[in-house]
């Protein structure tokens, strides 16, 4: 899942810090102050190399296609396209980076949607900088940073999906990669791909405008 640049050595030999040993990061956040804050915070860490800090999903993709990235730190809300879209896209690259969704709302349906988007972790914007750095190191080593889902959320997800989608969701949650999922369920990769997008659409906030009554539709 991650590129070979990170040292997963189990018996921690102190290596001299070289650029190659650093975790290459991509920061994506559309709020300028947060983006700058993230970049500066992560730059201070000796083992991180911030390759770029960009504001939009498209800019993030064009960087990731050119440069090797180990971990992408992606804000959930990115204007037109959100962080989950970026995550899905990044995961389809030849050597996909680990993806960490950085969001004000780290629980609820976003956690489930992030599973479908194959993100590796969600970190709350209300957390400390050190927690973020720890999570980045975790996912860079190939560990999942997803927390177990509360029961009501699991129930809801199950009620939303058909049998096959539930199976896909369960396997994603268990960290099984898409190739294996497709093989297990007898789907082609393209089938699974379109199914994943559909599941993501289903989970993502529709941001429906609640109208209290039809007559009041134009009141806002």
């Amino acid at each position, binding site marked *: 899942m991650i590129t070979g640049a990170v040292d997963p050595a189990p018996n921690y030999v102190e290596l001299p810090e070289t650029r190659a040993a650093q975790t290459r990061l991509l920061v994506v956040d559309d709020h300028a102050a947060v983006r700058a*804050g993230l970049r500066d915070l992560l730059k201070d860490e000796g083992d991180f190399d911030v390759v770029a800090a960009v504001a939009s999903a498209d800019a993030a993709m064009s960087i990731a296609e050119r440069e090797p990235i180990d971990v992408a730190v992606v804000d959930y809300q990115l204007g037109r396209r959100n962080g989950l879209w970026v995550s899905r896209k990044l995961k389809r690259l030849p050597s996909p980076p680990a993806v960490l969704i950085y969001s004000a709302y780290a629980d609820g*349906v976003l956690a489930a949607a992030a599973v479908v988007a194959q993100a590796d972790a969600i970190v709350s914007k*209300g957390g400390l*900088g050190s927690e973020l750095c720890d999570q980045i190191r975790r996912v860079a080593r190939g560990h999942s940073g997803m927390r177990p889902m509360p029961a009501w959320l699991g129930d809801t997800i199950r009620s939303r999906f058909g049998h096959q989608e539930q199976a896909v969701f369960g396997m994603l949650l268990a960290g099984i990669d898409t190739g294996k999922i497709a093989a297990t369920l007898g789907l082609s990769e393209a089938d699974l791909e379109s199914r994943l997008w559909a599941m993501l659409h289903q989970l993502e906030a529709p941001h429906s*405008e609640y109208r*209290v009554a*039809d007559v009041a539709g134009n009141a806002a």
Partner: protein
Amino acid sequence: MRRRPSRRRRYIPLLQRVAGLNVLLVLASVVITVVVLAPRKISSFAVDEEIVVLVAAVGLVVLANVYLLRRVVGPVQALTALARRVDLTSPGQRISAAQPTSEAGELAVTFNEMLQRLQTERWEATGRVLAAQEAERLRIAQELHDQVGQQLTAVLLGLSRVQSRAPAELQDDVLAVQDVVRAGLEDVRRIAIELRPEALDDLGLASALAVLAERSSERLGLNVSVEISADLPQLGTEAELVVYRVAQEALTNVARHSGVDVAELTLAHEHPGTTLSVRDGGRGLPPGNAAGTGMRGMRERATLIGARLQIRNVDADGGCEVRLHLPLKDSP
């Protein structure tokens, strides 16, 4: 429902006035007939017999008159009575069997039409106000999240950086400031969620109510047990929002007024229709409880979707229940 003290009548009722006039007219015509047209007959016949027949005839005419007049005036009286007690928030109150077969009937029909119009207008106005309120809440929630929340996040990131460079004697201070900022972020997030039930948009009603119950325990210290039927019909977005807001308001009321910290929330599929119930074992409604703005708001929301809201004491020992019944919907 407020009731105005009944006014003292300062006029003679229509029925009595017309009946009285008619009696006078009948009597006058009898007298004229007897005195002017047949003055000599009076002495030649037995007076007693004649008077008995006359009085009986006059009495009969008067009774028939009153009976017919009652039929005409009846709708007017019904109209007055209904106009006194009519409550625009509970639909369906009309003068029954109003037929445009007389002026009074015409008036009753017109009155019914006016009630219908008033109710529709009120319904529309309430709908507009509530929609505007929801839109405003959404805007504030987004603004809070996109502006204040993001800036606080940036501050938090900056502080993390300061902390990692600060000398040892400043560490505690920086950590303390960080805690304040984190609390601020948590507040922003909580307020935004209360303003806008994002879980409702994301996950549907059942989950949103579960989240609401969870948050009620965090925020209000209220232990809410939730029971939701598995076979709930699709209610539609408007009805879901009303159910959610009523539950929200009811739980807030339990926390504020009941004196207990346990509540039950059920959403049940009852044929036909769906019923939300929020009940507690607290001290119940005070006697002569006047509807507060929260209650009024709940009722208005309920009326909008054709639902019925009841707020009552469960039994003599206390305990209060808020019930919202949504009639069956054919299609989502």
